[in-house]
């Protein structure tokens, strides 16, 4: 590794968030903080029934309520939409049918939130209730109780992917393990409930939308198509976002409802969801049933992987198509298995629809694979750490899916956690009740599903460097709290050799920023990072030419640092950066630069090839140490080791924050989170009282490390860290619990009752069907 390459000034520094001052003082504006002249408020009538035919919606009393300005129903906008128009099923408000508890049926706009709420109470709705389909297994068997008429067997999508010859490999394998798993339906739990403000200008016939969304341009598209307005008459501005984790990549009905009302009234309309509505809108993680078979040789090399997946899609399509294929891609990597078979099916159920959530497809995949690896390790008599090391990918690995892992320090991650935790000396050797478990994973970085299914650039950055504002970067990627604005600012500042405070980063605005695939699939640092760097270099080049002419030095011999442009051979020969800018302005014109990035086209010729390939991958290895109360089954994760390969950490403190946050989110799913519905599909825990996310008292002791790495294909060597860390957490805990009590729990959340029963010989898999996602309300154990 060339040391010169990594001699950075600003990249690699843990600078505080550039918008941090505003956040700690309460100045930072979020969508619900917005107050526009003449703004009115919307509230929604939410369906009290999970599945039914709408017979009547009587809005007459609501319309007459003093202070109410408009009331709309589904007929206002019956056009179906989805993510990127894939299998559209959703409408702004329910049309003819309701398909999940809490689905919006009608919306009121009034002069105050209080009046709007009171008016909603006056809406009269008659619904002919239909039987609710609440588990994926039941749904898959339905022939006549269809949630969407156009989808037989309630099947949203199926996926099959085959590489090599799995059946043959399984026969040849010395050891085969097989197990069935269930990962739960969880909610993003972002502290900021979804909120939207739409401001229709009746004079210009243009719409401005303010929404906490991760993908400004995709939202713009969805609004344009759904409410039927020209794309370029819509401007999406994204204020600060109070957490997204993938759940704010889709257009929620709140946006469409406010647009429709605003257009009707010719004045701004705001709609902010309550926590219950936020959970009804969900767009969290897919519940998933997985049956996995792994075949190994006696020497520990993996021969075969055979995975069947049934994905619980809730009421709508959303990202479902993509998750289904993504699980396939995330299952065989990060190990070197050649014979792979994947069969997946996504079905609809009458539940709040899942969408994308951090480590999208990764939690499901890692839970199954990492648990089965441990099972195989036991049968083979090989330590689980060793078994990973034998099969871990390295730089240059080409998967059977024709995906190349262009950079990997995965083995370093495994070594790091194993050494720090003394794993090999503890595993299998701790007193009963104490356990240690290993799990690992990866995630794509910079890839992402094409917004336009074309070769259009995924990220574009424009930069203007002038004495009036400094260096102003326009780039469409959204900071949802992960720190992309700070990272991009660091990148631009590094290229130009100017302080961070001289860089203005304008993003999250479709009028100002060029089209961007946005913040999803961990593509900001890698994808937008490239675009920003290229744009900055483009501008820098122009300034170097002027500086070079002034100094009498060739451009190739000049560099930018500390607000100077200087000769690399004699740093006494320099010109001030801003003097160079002035010169450029005076002699040539305003200094602009532009750059963009598109990942390499996916290769190969197999179904699902465009979902999963990525120009880079982030890696993680994790070890959980648990303590089980043998009398009650209460499980505490005492310590958590983690190692990350995120390439060069552009902002190490931000990386650590992503790891810590990602692991705790994973622990939430592993131990305490689940959206619970009853047999009628009614959500039983649509609030933070009963939908429990981790508190300070649920933190493990962290011991994390960023392994030394640098990905030369990335702008400054950096790769993703936003999503990989969440993937293996459930599996790490499952493996640790097995080590602690000798019983393998195969579904999450791992509640104390499950552990208690496991210790007493009753396994979760012996629960009758009703329990999964319905909680223990109907728990029946065989033999009860």
């Amino acid at each position, binding site marked *: 590794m060339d040391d010169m390459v990594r001699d950075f000034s600003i990249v690699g520094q843990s600078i505080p968030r550039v918008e941090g001052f505003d956040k700690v003082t309460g100045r930072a504006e979020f969508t619900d903080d917005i107050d526009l002249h003449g703004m009115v408020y919307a509230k929604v009538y939410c369906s009290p029934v999970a599945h039914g035919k709408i017979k009547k919606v009587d809005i007459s009393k609501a319309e007459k309520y003093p202070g109410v300005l408009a009331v709309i129903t589904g007929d206002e906008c019956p056009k179906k939409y989805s993510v990127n128009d894939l299998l559209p099923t959703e409408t702004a408000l329910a049309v003819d049918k309701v398909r999940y508890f809490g689905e919006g049926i009608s919306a009121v706009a009034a002069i105050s939130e209080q009046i709007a709420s009171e008016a909603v109470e006056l809406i009269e709705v008659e619904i002919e209730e239909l039987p609710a389909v609440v588990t994926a297994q039941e749904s898959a068997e339905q022939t006549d109780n269809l949630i969407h008429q156009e989808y037989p067997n309630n099947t949203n999508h199926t996926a099959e992917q085959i590489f090599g010859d799995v059946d043959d490999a399984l026969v040849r394998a010395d050891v085969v393990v097989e197990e069935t798993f269930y990962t739960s339906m969880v909610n993003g739990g972002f502290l900021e409930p979804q909120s939207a403000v739409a401001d229709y200008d009746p004079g210009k016939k243009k719409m401005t939308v303010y929404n906490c969304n991760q993908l400004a341009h995709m939202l713009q598209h969805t609004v344009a198509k759904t409410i039927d307005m020209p794309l370029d008459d819509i401007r999406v501005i994204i204020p600060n976002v109070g957490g997204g984790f993938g759940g704010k990549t889709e257009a929620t009905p709140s946006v469409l409802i406010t647009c429709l009302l605003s257009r009707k009234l010719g004045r701004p309309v705001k709609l902010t969801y309550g926590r219950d509505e936020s959970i009804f809108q969900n767009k969290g993680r897919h519940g998933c049933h997985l049956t996995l078979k792994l075949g190994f040789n006696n020497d520990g090399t993996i021969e075969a992987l055979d995975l069947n997946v049934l994905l619980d899609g809730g009421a709508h399509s959303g990202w479902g198509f993509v998750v289904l294929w993504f699980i396939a891609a995330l299952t065989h990597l990060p190990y070197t298995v050649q014979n792979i078979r994947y069969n997946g099916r996504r079905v609809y159920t009458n539940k709040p629809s899942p969408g994308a959530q951090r480590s999208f497809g990764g939690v499901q995949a890692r839970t199954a694979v990492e648990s089965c690896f441990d099972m195989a390790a036991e049968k083979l008599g090989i330590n689980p750490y060793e078994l990973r090391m034998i099969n871990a990918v390295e730089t240059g690995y080409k998967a059977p899916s024709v995906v190349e892992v262009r950079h990997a320090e995965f083995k370093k991650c495994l070594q790091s956690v194993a050494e720090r935790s003394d794993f090999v000396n503890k595993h299998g050797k701790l007193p009963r009740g104490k356990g240690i478990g290993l799990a690992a994973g990866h995630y794509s970085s910079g890839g992402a599903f094409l917004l336009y299914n074309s070769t259009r650039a995924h990220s574009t950055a424009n930069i203007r460097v002038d004495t009036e504002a400094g260096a102003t970067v326009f780039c469409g990627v959204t900071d949802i709290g992960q720190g992309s604005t700070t990272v991009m600012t660091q990148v631009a500042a590094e290229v130009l050799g100017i302080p961070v405070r001289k860089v203005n980063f304008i993003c999250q605005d479709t009028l100002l920023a060029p089209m961007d695939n946005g913040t999803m699939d961990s593509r900001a640092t890698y994808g937008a990072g490239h675009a920003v760097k290229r744009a900055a270099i483009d501008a820098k080049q122009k300034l170097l030419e002027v500086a070079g002419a002034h100094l009498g030095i060739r451009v190739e011999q000049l560099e930018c640092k500390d607000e100077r442009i200087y000769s690399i051979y004699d740093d006494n020969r320099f010109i001030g950066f801003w003097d160079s800018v002035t010169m450029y302005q005076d002699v040539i014109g305003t200094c602009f630069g532009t750059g963009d990035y598109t990942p390499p086209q996916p290769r190969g010729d197999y179904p699902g090839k465009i979902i999963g390939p990525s120009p880079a991958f982030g890696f993680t290895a994790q070890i959980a140490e648990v303590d089980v109360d043998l*009398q009650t089954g209460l499980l505490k994760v005492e310590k958590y080791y983690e190692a990350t390969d995120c390439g060069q950490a552009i902002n190490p403190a931000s990386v650590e924050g992503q790891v810590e946050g990602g692991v705790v989110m994973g622990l939430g799913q592993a131990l305490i989170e689940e959206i619970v519905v009853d047999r009628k599909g009614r959500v039983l825990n649509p609030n933070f009282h009963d939908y429990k996310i*981790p508190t300070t008292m*649920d933190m493990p002791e962290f011991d994390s490390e960023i392994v030394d790495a640098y990905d030369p294909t990335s702008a400054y060597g950096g790769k993703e860290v936003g999503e990989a860390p969440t993937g293996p957490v459930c599996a790490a805990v499952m493996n640790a619990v097995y080590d602690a009590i000798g019983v393998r729990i195969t579904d999450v959340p791992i509640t*104390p*009752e499950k552990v208690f029963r496991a210790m007493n010989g009753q396994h979760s898999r012996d629960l009758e069907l009703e329990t999964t996602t319905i909680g*223990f309300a109907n728990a029946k154990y065989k033999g009860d």
Partner: protein
Amino acid sequence: MYLPRFQYLAPAGEAELASMLAEHGDKARILAGGTDLLVQMKAPGLWPDYLIDIRNVAELSSIEFDDQDGLTVGASAKLENILNTPAVAERYHGLYQAIETIGARQILTMGSMGGNICNASPAADSPPALMSFNAQVTIGSTQGDKEMALEDFIRGNRKTALGVGEYLKSIFLPAPAAKSGSAYHYFRVRGGMEIAMVAAAVYVEADLADKSLKDIKIVLGVVGPTPIRALEAEDMLTGQTPDEDLLAKALGSCAAVSKPIDDFRASAEYRREILKVLVQRAFGEAYTIATS
């Protein structure tokens, strides 16, 4: 999320409070900390015409301890202030433990023990601990005061003995015996901001000579619509020096009298198992304190 509209009254003293309650009857609810009441009012169903805020009724917020008599806590005394009363930590250990778990910091500064009792949630933390100390309550109204045992005051799931026009004035705990110990153990899944899934409060007075139990109270929490005194278990243990077999029988009796529910958080069967563990642990702690 909006609160329904109501009229707000803030009496300056007890007499005014009593007469407002008499006047408005069941159209009024008392507002103390608001951490239960206002949450319930934001959900459909609870819509009182009047909220009577007792924050200015000084008589209801006092906390007094007398070594002979015991502890008197005004209905609106803040949970935090009760925790900061030295006598509570020193003499009513189980109550201290119970109050600590009622909620996070913000709830402890806003909420009151009176509110915790009057809300009468089956999962309330203070009632089982209070009952283990033989707590008595004083109820006020324009008709004068009356007293009753806390266990008679809490009638069912969110039901108390308060009639129209009545309000909780104070809670009285007799002074515990010199050689006594107490504990409150709870079971919950999340580490913070969590209601108990099962709880047990134990008060023990022991004979230092033979370590036998002179007095024992076992109160089972969250396993029925109201806290349950495990009378049979108490009888088994009173006067005895506890050994493993006796304890096991007593625990079995506790499980037998409990009436836990099945819900999505846990099954009834499991809650019974946990109950036994908690009673055992609470007893162990209380007994250790009492015999030290």
